[in-house]
Structure formats: structure tokens, C-alpha cells
């Protein structure tokens, strides 16, 4: 089995800026962005990195795409060391970042894609064919002649995606490729990623995302990463299966800002997370219980805390719950 990406005890730390250093003088003046990361991504796989803000996802992608050096450890892309032979790695990869503003506002969509294809030495004819195909699949033909400075956010992100795929890399890194896109555009992008991958068994996708549903739908396997550490790495199905013995409850109460810490200590509660939605005056609670009977303790504690239950339901485990079970909190901005 060939690995598209392999990392061995990969570490990356950042020094804190001076101002921040002064604030917490006694604390360590470093941020650990990646800690002993060991991953093996198979060729042909659609692999996901799931984690909250600051987990280290982008850091990992930057190391793999030769934009950043690891502090220690080794990373191989298509079997090639990213530190020792970056030029060789670059021939095999490309990267798309959500919200990036690549290109020059004065060029139109087609010209922009052509320009980036030339950085990969693609013959003009082939490049133009590929661009035509991408424009068609992503439903961008009518914007082919639009200057990119005039594109809307969604169109712009489609352009970014096309830019990444225009050179048909062997391995592509997608860092939140659907960030801020509406449902339809995200769906188009996801669909394209899947078809592209299926076209050639040697292709590999490494995707980071905040969106659980996206990870669930797309990924063959995924790694949950938090504070620089890989907590678990498996297929979405297996991850969810790991929770089937537990009882998962979603409870909605009126907006309650106090007393949340106590809920984690209720007997029978394995993990607990909450999210305030002040604009609708609600707080959402997620409980992972050792077994169903513990729910009575939970509802008691909620009433004791003075909160009123609006709804309560037992749910099948989702990736979100896997995340709560592992990290002990929910993924924010989850919608």
C-alpha cells in the first residue's frame, strides 16, 4: 500500500509575539500547533482533518505543502521528504484555502486559471481544455470572461477550487474549501471533489473542515485533532459506532448562562457540551451518558439550576457527538 502522506512525530511550535509574551510572563512563551502527529493517508483516499479553531489543521497543511518547516519530526508526501526535497513535492501537490484571494482583479476567470496552469508547465491546449471542463462542471461558464475582481464570494471560491484542480495534482490539500459558501455551491464543490478523486486511483485529497456533515459525507477516514494532537483516526462509520453503547441526548433549555460546569459532574454523564444561542434565547445541551437511566439525574439537575427544558431527544450518534465525546466540547460555528 502506498501512502500519499505520512508523518512521523511531527511537531510545530510558534514563538509568541512580544506583547503577548509580556502578558503571560510566567507561562510558556510558545504555542504548540502540532504535537507528535503520526498520520498515514493512503493513496486514493479522501482524508479529513476535523478540529476546532486553532487545532493545527492549517499548520499541518502548510508543512505538507512546503510553506512551513516542522520544528521536529518528518513528513513525507508521496514518499518524498517535504523538508529535504520541496521542489519534488511541489510537482505533485496543490492547495486550496477557503476565502483566499488569489490572482489579479484585472484578469478574468479564464485568464486567471490559465495563468496558474502555466506555473505547472501545462501546454496551452491542454490547459484550455481543462479550464473549459472545470468551468462547465462547476457551472461557471457564464463567468468565464468576468474579471475576478467583480466575482461574488461564492463564485470567487469556485475559482479558487478550479485553480487548485487545474493542474490535476496527485495530492490536493483543501483547507476549508467550502468556507462561507451557500448550500448549493458547497454541494457543487463537494460533488466535483468526489468525481475528481474517483477518476484516477492515484489521486488523494486531504481536506480540513469545520462542517461535520461535510466530513461525514465526503471522508473515507478522518482524524480528529485538538490542540495539536490527533485524538483519533478512523472512518466516520467506525467513529460513530464507537458511541453506540452510549446514550446521547440533545436538550434545549431557555437561555441559561450560569451553572453549566456542574452538568459535567452529574453521575452517569461521560461528556457534556453546550452552546448558547442568545439571539433565539436558547441554550443547547449535549449529553453523552453511560446509559439511558442517567437522564433522570440530568433533568433534575437542570431544573435545580432553574432552567426550563424546551425539548429533549435521544439521538443516534453523529460525528458531532463523536467530537464532543473526544474533545469534551462542541465545534463552534457549526452551521
Amino acid at each position: 500500500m502506498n501512502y500519499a502522506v505520512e508523518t512521523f512525530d511531527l511537531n510545530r511550535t510558534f514563538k509568541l509575539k512580544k506583547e503577548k509574551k509580556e502578558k503571560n510572563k510566567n507561562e510558556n512563551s510558545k504555542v504548540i500547533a502540532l504535537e507528535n502527529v503520526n498520520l498515514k493517508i493512503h493513496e486514493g483516499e479522501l482524508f479529513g482533518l476535523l478540529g476546532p479553531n486553532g487545532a493545527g489543521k492549517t499548520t499541518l497543511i502548510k508543512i505538507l505543502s512546503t510553506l512551513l518547516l516542522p520544528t521536529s519530526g518528518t513528513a513525507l508526501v508521496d514518499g518524498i521528504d517535504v523538508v529535504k526535497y520541496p521542489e519534488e513535492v511541489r510537482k505533485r501537490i496543490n492547495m486550496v484555502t477557503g476565502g483566499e484571494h488569489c490572482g489579479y482583479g484585472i484578469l478574468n476567470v479564464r485568464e486567471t486559471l490559465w495563468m496558474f496552469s502555466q506555473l505547472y508547465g501545462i501546454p496551452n491546449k491542454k490547459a484550455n481544455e481543462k479550464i473549459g471542463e472545470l468551468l462547465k462542471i462547476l457551472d461557471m461558464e457564464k463567468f468565464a470572461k468576468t474579471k475576478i475582481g467583480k466575482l461574488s464570494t461564492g463564485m470567487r471560491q469556485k475559482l479558487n477550487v478550479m485553480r487548485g484542480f487545474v493542474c490535476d495534482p496527485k495530492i490536493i490539500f483543501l483547507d476549508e474549501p467550502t468556507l462561507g459558501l451557500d448550500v448549493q455551491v458547497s454541494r457543487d464543490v463537494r460533488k466535483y471533489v468526489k468525481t475528481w478523486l474517483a477518476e484516477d486511483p492515484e489521486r488523494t485529497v486531504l481536506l480540513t473542515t469545520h462542517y461535520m456533515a461535510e466530513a461525514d459525507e465526503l471522508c473515507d477516514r478522518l482524524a480528529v485533532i485538538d490542540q495539536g494532537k490527533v485524538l483519533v483516526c478512523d472512518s466516520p462509520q467506525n467513529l460513530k459506532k464507537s458511541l453506540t453503547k452510549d446514550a446521547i441526548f440533545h436538550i434545549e433549555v431557555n437561555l441559561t448562562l450560569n451553572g453549566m460546569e456542574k452538568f459535567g459532574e452529574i453521575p452517569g454523564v461521560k461528556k457534556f457540551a453546550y452552546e448558547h444561542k442568545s439571539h433565539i434565547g436558547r441554550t443547547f445541551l449535549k449529553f453523552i451518558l453511560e446509559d439511558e437511566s442517567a437522564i433522570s439525574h440530568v433533568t433534575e439537575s437542570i431544573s435545580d439550576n432553574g432552567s426550563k427544558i424546551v425539548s429533549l431527544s435521544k439521538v443516534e450518534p453523529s460525528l458531532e457527538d463523536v467530537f464532543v465525546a473526544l474533545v469534551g466540547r462542541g465545534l463552534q460555528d457549526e452551521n
Partner: protein
Amino acid sequence: MKTDLKTNIKAVIARAYVRVVAANREPSWWLTETLLPVLSTAAYVYVYKALKAPEEYTGFVILGGTMSAYWVMVLWSMAAQFYWEKEMGNLDLYMIAPISRMSILLGMASGGVLLTTTRAFAIFLAGSLIFKVSFSIISFPKLLAVFILTLVGLYGLGMLFSSLFLLYGREAWHGVTLLQEPVHLLSGFFFPVRSLGFGVALGASLIPLTLGLDAMRQLAFKTGAKSGFINVNLEIIALVILCILFLVLSKYAWDFMERLGKKEGRLSLRWQ
């Protein structure tokens, strides 16, 4: 190796294309970038006329104005351009592409030369016609050689400056702003550099424009040699050395800055 070369050539052309297209799509740039320099050059001509300076000073000034277009271009469209490339995220994309960084720089430079040459030519033509400058070219091949060497040297310097932008954004930007005017003075855009005194002129010679302009004046005007700084042949040799120096240095500076940037995590901006 062969495919690598092909890829790099394609990258140069693609990057140059952006420059040329951009200029054609914004015709107003052409106007501001040509008309304004012509006006500021004309201002100097009138000052000299009012001071009853020797006739050939008019020619000197026009030549200076012409070459100044290249200097402004090198500072803003080569070096400081990287400030924008980094802000927009293009730098990341150039860095992960399987091409030499020099190809991107060369693409910017060649696109830039093409544009600036039309601009410089307009300044030159307008100035020479309006003020009826009389040229008497002593050696055309030497003049051409000096012109090309000056450009190569200037672009080498631009590449060297651009490496600063890999790590520093605003700071480098301010540095470039500070450089623009003093260089106009030191390199003798609007008067023979000899008037600055030998020591200052020698220092200013580090900027290829200084020797280039001086040599061009000596080669293009009858009385040019009289107000020249040093012998033209010496100036040509010095220019060759400067060109090699800047090109080699810029390659090292880029490698160094890139490595440092990758180590400290400052190469690409953090935005997510």
C-alpha cells in the same frame, strides 16, 4: 531538467502577461504614468533654462526623466509588489508551484520592462521634441550596452529588495518609500552626478542608475564627456560587476529569506 526549464519559461510568460494585460485594461495608468513624469521633467528643464545653464543640461534632464521611469517601476512594481502578492495570498501559490522563484521575478521584470519602455520612450520623445534636444551619439553599441546593463542592474536591485518583502510587509514598504526621493538626488537624475563630489558619487554608484546615466550622457552628447564622472569604459566594467553582484545576491537573499520565513512561520500570512 528539460521539462523544468519549459515550466519555468511558461511561468515567466504567464507572469509577464498579467503586467501587459493590466496596463492595457487601465488606459488611465498610461496617462498618469507618462504625462506626470513628462511634466516634472519639463519643470527641471525650465529651471535650468531660467538659470541659464549650458544647453546640454536640457538633454541631461530628459535622459534622467526617462531613466527615472525605470527606477520608479523597479521600486514599486518589483519590490513593493510583493507586499500585495503576500497580502492577497499569491505569494503562497507561487511558493508551492514547482518553479524557481526567479521565474516569477523575471516575469514581473520583463512585463515591467515592456511597459516601462513604452512609457520611457514617450517621455524621451516628448521631451526631446518639445525642447529640441540635439544628440550626437559617440558610439551606438556602447550606448545600447550601457542601457541594457543599467536595466539588468536595476532589476537585480529590485529582486534584492523584493526578498525583504518575504518577511517584512509594511516595514519594507516604508523603506522603499524612503528610498525613492534620495535616489533621485544621489543618482543624478537631473544633473551630472559629478556635481555631488567624488566621494558621494562613488557611494551613489552602488545604484546602477548612477553610472548608467552618467555613461549614457557621456555617450549621447557632444560635451557629455566633459561633465562625466569617470571614464565610460570603466563605468561599463563597473556596471557588469554590479549586475552580477545584484543577481547573485538576490538569489541568495531569496533563499535565505524563504528559509527563515518557513522556519519562523512568517512566509505566508495567517488568516484562518
